[in-house]
């Protein structure tokens, strides 16, 4: 008997107390928890901005037409000049100037030689301050937003889900997903969080507001 058969047989033997007619659906799962932890009337974009900033990522909010300027300012502030640019990233969002944009395909050593990456996101999660990348257009393969030490992520306000249940429902598990909540960090020394280990040590998030309002910058 193969190990597969042995293990399956052992499982069935171990579950002798489970009635044969019982199916998984007969084991009740009460889902009395909230679909969202947003307070009534609370603005998800506002909360998202707050919660991302809690992880010591920097949040910028911008009207669509101001995005290139906001990105330009962030890159200048960080001293980031050589950047990975995923295919499908909307060129109208890119600032001009003397920056070097490296397009895909990019090998890992090529990525390692760059200062940072600029990507879009698939979904945001307000309650947890999380951005999710699904390697879709404008996001690149997973290595692109991982290997360079700086990551700037542009997310549209309407991509921000209230909470985790809604976010998971919007995502396609068949794609490789990366949930990012702040820059890389560790709690391994005395169980106290410090930022900056193997992943990008600096994370900037630019929220593109739906309406053309005055852009607010917060950090």
């Amino acid at each position, binding site marked *: 008997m*193969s*190990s*597969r058969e*042995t*293990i*399956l047989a052992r*499982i*069935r*033997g*171990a*579950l*002798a107390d*489970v009635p044969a007619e019982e199916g*998984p659906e007969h*084991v*009740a*799962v*009460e*889902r009395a*928890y*909230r679909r969202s*932890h947003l307070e009534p009337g609370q603005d998800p974009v506002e909360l998202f901005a707050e*919660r991302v900033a809690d*992880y010591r990522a920097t949040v910028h909010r911008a009207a669509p037409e101001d995005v290139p300027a906001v990105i330009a300012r962030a890159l200048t502030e960080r001293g980031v000049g050589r950047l990975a640019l995923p295919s499908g990233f909307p060129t109208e969002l890119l600032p001009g100037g003397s920056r070097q944009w490296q397009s895909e395909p990019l090998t*890992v*050593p090529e990525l390692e030689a760059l200062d940072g990456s600029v990507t879009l996101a698939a979904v945001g*999660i307000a309650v947890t301050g999380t951005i999710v990348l699904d*390697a879709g257009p404008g996001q690149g*393969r*997973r*290595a692109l937003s*991982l*290997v360079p030490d700086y990551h700037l992520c542009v997310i549209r306000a309407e991509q921000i889900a209230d909470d*985790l249940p809604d976010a*998971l*429902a919007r995502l396609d*598990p*068949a*794609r*490789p*997903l*990366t*949930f*990012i*909540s*702040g820059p*890389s*960090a*560790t*709690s*391994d*020394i*005395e*169980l*106290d969080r*410090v930022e*900056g*280990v*193997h*992943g990008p040590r600096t994370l900037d998030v630019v929220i593109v507001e739906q309406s053309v309002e005055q852009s607010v910058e917060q950090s």
Partner: protein
Amino acid sequence: MSDRGVVWLGSPSFPEAARTALADQQLRTNLRRATTTIRDKRLAVAAELDDWEELRTAAEAIKRRTARHLDRYLLQLEEAVTAAGGSVHWAGDAAEANRIVAALIQATGEREVVKIKSMATQEIGLNEALALEGITAYETDLAELIVQLGEDRPSHILVPAIHKNRTEIRDLFAAEMAHWGEPAPEGLSDDPRELAEAARRHLRKKFLAAKVAVSGANFAVADTGTVTVVESEGNGRMCLSLPETLITVMGIEKVVPTWSDLEVFLQLLPRSSTGERMNPYTSTWTGVTEGDGPSQFHLVLLDNGRTDTLADTVGRQVLACIRCSACLNVCPVFERTGGHAYGSVYPGPIGAVLTPQLVGVEQAASLPFASTLCGACYDACPVKINIPEVLAHLRAEVVEAKRHPLSPEALAMKAAATVLDSPRLLSAAQKAASLGGRVLAREGRIGRLPGPLHGWSDTRDSPAPPAESFRTWWRKNREGTP
């Protein structure tokens, strides 16, 4: 019994190992500091969710559903992973899992692998097994790196180096990093930021060069074949997306039925483990993706005592564990003794209920007794494992397994049971105790005692029994019958 790993051979019993640990003042200070920090953080983020109890209830139910139909979910998972281009392997015990992983690595022609922290591979002793095959496994999680560099043992399931403080870590990095690759920078301080930076530099080349990675899994979704790793540092992302081959070893109990079930666990896990609303990085993948990440994906499903655990209708609930470590962090025993005293890769309350079930109660007979049954673990557990209930259950199994009618404890328990089942004998015993106690007592207290009670009486006085028991008083004063 086949080779299951889990316990460290030759480890002393818990009380003995605890005595050594308790004498280590530095360890006590490190543990107290770390556990106090994390407890407050956990309480604060759990309190943010007013439906925390409902989430726990749902998590418990999802895990119960999974366990009761485990065969079905594993087959579904196998099918989904295979359909997405991955390969699934089944390992009955530690030795078989190690053989499978070694063979998979050898097939790539590589002799070095990078590893993400994983309890399953700790449990089976994978690194040691690979070393025998001439394969070096580099731990990339900061705490695992600290353990590996120090040739130490993990003492916590989430933060295996919790027993070390920043200064000890600095010294270790300065002394050992050079032997494994990139040395520690000159003049390294004990600032955690600098230590994290040193780890980043030390491992950077390894990540970029690695062709094979080995990981564990936090969850695997049966209906989609999606595997999940929850982490903080980005070492997980490096291992999961840069190498060509990814080998994931996971216990069979890690499967969850559906993608949407993750909405429960991904809320509970980070808040319970590191006390964060969300951990920095969670990666999910389904088989292989053309042009992104490994082109070979192997999933090794590990039994290693889990089906024995499943067969115990009370002990089964322990398989729901999501390895958050909240129970360790709140445990008053763990806080004093640290993890090494448990003699197993699974320390603390979860270890006390899991280790004996994985390896058999005779192999870990002192662990179910390493608890006051205070219940702090049960309150903290995000999947509502009733750890005190399982501890009491396993104690009975230990007693049955080791029952020798002439052991001093069994004799005492038997005698006590006889006395306690008879008001007349109890009354007589109370009179004898009263007389005897008053002989021993000074100023109403009994000091040091010989024999098995010396450990008790080393630090505590005992009360002298009163002149008469309550039942005697009642008979005299309320019934008028002396």
